[in-house]
């Protein structure tokens, strides 16, 4: 690991993510841990999107679909477990579950399938169509979840107890936080490896120049589709964790506002940067808490900040802190 400014920054952020919650345990501020967990889960969602957006250049304005699918997977399974009603009785008996290790793969698989279908349809055309179509599919899930009253409809679904993880007491905030942080670190590692792999190279090239990719004998569409599926799966996992954190799932997890917000995390942090999504999510959650405490119209300031960043400083905050240096390894 070379000592670059970006690597130092990443290290500092990681250290912060470890030390701040520990400090919160010492001074007995559990709410800070909840905030930190929220930031980490949002980071994970954004890391997912960044694979499609930052690496692949796919402007997906409907990533909340996967967030919501992950959340509802967790929610529906938990609902059936806590109410002792099986999910299916015929042809085979499937009951609910509150085991994280069962819920997570399921959430990821369901999100991946949705990403495959949506990606397949949306990648038929590029550019603006892709943006509009992903936005539209997000809306579709949103309205569907509102009208499907079996799982709460507009009011959402409450989950009584946090899901279980072997050897860990997940009801203790710092322990649940540790799980989420571990997953985020794993996702960041996967992201980093992916970016440097053959696949990552081709994906990044596909983002910059599809003609070039075709003329070396590769199909940019399949590459982007696979990236979109991976991206959806990771964001789906974040959704499952989010539902677990809040012990609540609702259609707002599918909303266009959330899709936009996940994208905003990445832009604030820095789109091409590994820790961009993380820094952006942390800043967002911090602003939401502090500015939101001062004014309920704090989103205006977020809007202004976003506008200024887009118009004047595309590298986001990481870019600002680290300069134009880029590691090409």
């Amino acid at each position, binding site marked *: 690991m070379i000592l670059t400014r970006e690597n130092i920054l990443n290290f500092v952020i990681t250290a912060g993510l470890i030390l701040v919650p520990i400090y919160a345990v010492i001074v007995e501020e559990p709410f800070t841990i909840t905030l930190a967990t929220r930031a980490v889960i949002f980071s994970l969602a954004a890391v997912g999107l960044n694979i499609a*957006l930052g690496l692949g250049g796919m*402007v997906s*304005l409907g990533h909340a679909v996967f967030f919501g699918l992950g959340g509802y997977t967790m929610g529906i399974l938990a609902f059936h477990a806590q109410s002792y009603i099986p999910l299916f009785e015929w042809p085979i008996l499937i009951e609910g579950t509150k085991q994280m290790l069962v819920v997570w793969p399921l959430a990821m698989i369901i999100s991946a399938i949705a990403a495959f279908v949506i990606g397949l*349809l*949306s990648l*038929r*055309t590029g*550019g*603006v*169509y892709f*943006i*509009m*179509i992903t*936005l*539209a*599919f997000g*809306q*579709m899930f949103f*309205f*569907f979840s*509102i*009208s*499907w*009253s*079996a799982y709460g409809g507009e009011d959402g679904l409450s989950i009584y107890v946090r899901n279980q993880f072997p050897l860990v007491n997940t009801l203790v905030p710092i322990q649940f936080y540790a799980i989420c942080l571990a997953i985020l670190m794993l996702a960041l590692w996967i992201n980093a490896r992916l970016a440097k792999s053959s696949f990552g190279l081709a994906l990044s090239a596909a983002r910059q120049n599809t003609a070039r990719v075709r003329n070396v004998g590769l199909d940019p569409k399949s590459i982007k589709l696979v990236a979109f599926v991976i991206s959806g799966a990771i964001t789906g996992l974040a959704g499952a964790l989010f539902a677990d954190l809040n012990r609540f799932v609702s259609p707002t997890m599918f909303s*266009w506002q959330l899709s*936009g917000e996940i*994208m*905003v995390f990445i*832009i604030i942090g820095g789109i091409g940067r590994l820790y961009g999504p993380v820094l952006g999510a942390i800043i967002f959650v911090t602003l939401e808490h502090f500015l939101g405490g001062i004014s309920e*119209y*704090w*989103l*205006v300031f*977020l*809007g*202004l900040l*976003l*506008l200024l960043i*887009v*118009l004047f400083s*595309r590298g986001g905050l990481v870019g600002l802190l680290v300069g134009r240096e880029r590691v090409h390894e």
Partner: protein
Amino acid sequence: MGAANSCTQTCGVFMSFALFAEQVLNGLQSGIMLFVMAAGLTLIFGVMGLINLAHGSLYMVGAFAAAAAAAWTGSFLLALIAALIGAALVGMFVEMLVIRRLYDRDHLDQVLATFALILIFSEGTRFFFGSFPLFLDVPKVIAGPINLPIGIEYPVYRLIIIGVGLCVALGLWLLISKTRLGVQIRAGKNDREMIAALGVNISALYTFVFAIGAGLAGLAGALVGAIQSVQVGMGEPVLILAFVVIVIGGIGSIKGAFIGAILVGLTDTLGGIFLPELFKLFMEGSIATSLGSALASMLIYILMAVILVCRPQGLFGVEG
């Protein structure tokens, strides 16, 4: 009456001609307002290559302008004019301040910047007007029903909406095909560079086109606001529907926007009424309604998906 009875007997469902006709008209009405939204969007994209998420905010601005004007003057007509002009002016202002910096940027930047505008507009409006919906009343004169030649009663106001929408369609068609401005609008990007070299003020053209789109959005917002309500966030669901219309119709095509909008309006309205009824034929009442309306909410997106499979560039879109 005899036809309705035999239909009832064969279908087992109470489906009268009156209900059907009424729903078709409702579908047309919602479709045509979608067209007004989508036309502005597709025009802006066709001419300037800009995807504008803030179009829904302009819809909202129009509705609020109308509500404010109606409260102040008591005149619905003035309210509509205020909506049109107010939204156009706001649009013009936003174009000169923010939008014009985005024409040369990639779509991601446009999306983010206009998303930022949504936040600013929405929260800003909430700050000034509060979170509770305002009400814009349809004047009593046109609030009542009228007897239509096909044998049903239908609200005058909704017919007026359809009428206004058709006028907008006609007006746009005339503008684009019969005027010099229309030629400038129809010019491809390269031709535009050419006519700029010949002295045409492209910057003013873009501002004007944006203002037209904004004004149309505002008008739609006011017209629909009188039927539903005027509140923050009313524009975005319509915006996304307008996107569906554009995807179906083909981006850059006003004709596509018209056909697409009518299709979406009819599918949404008729689907929402008849799908639950259809399900009731072989399912228990409450489940049928629940599942039927859930599926109906997805219908237009399924329609969009089907068209994407068969014709990715939209019904009237240009290939490639």
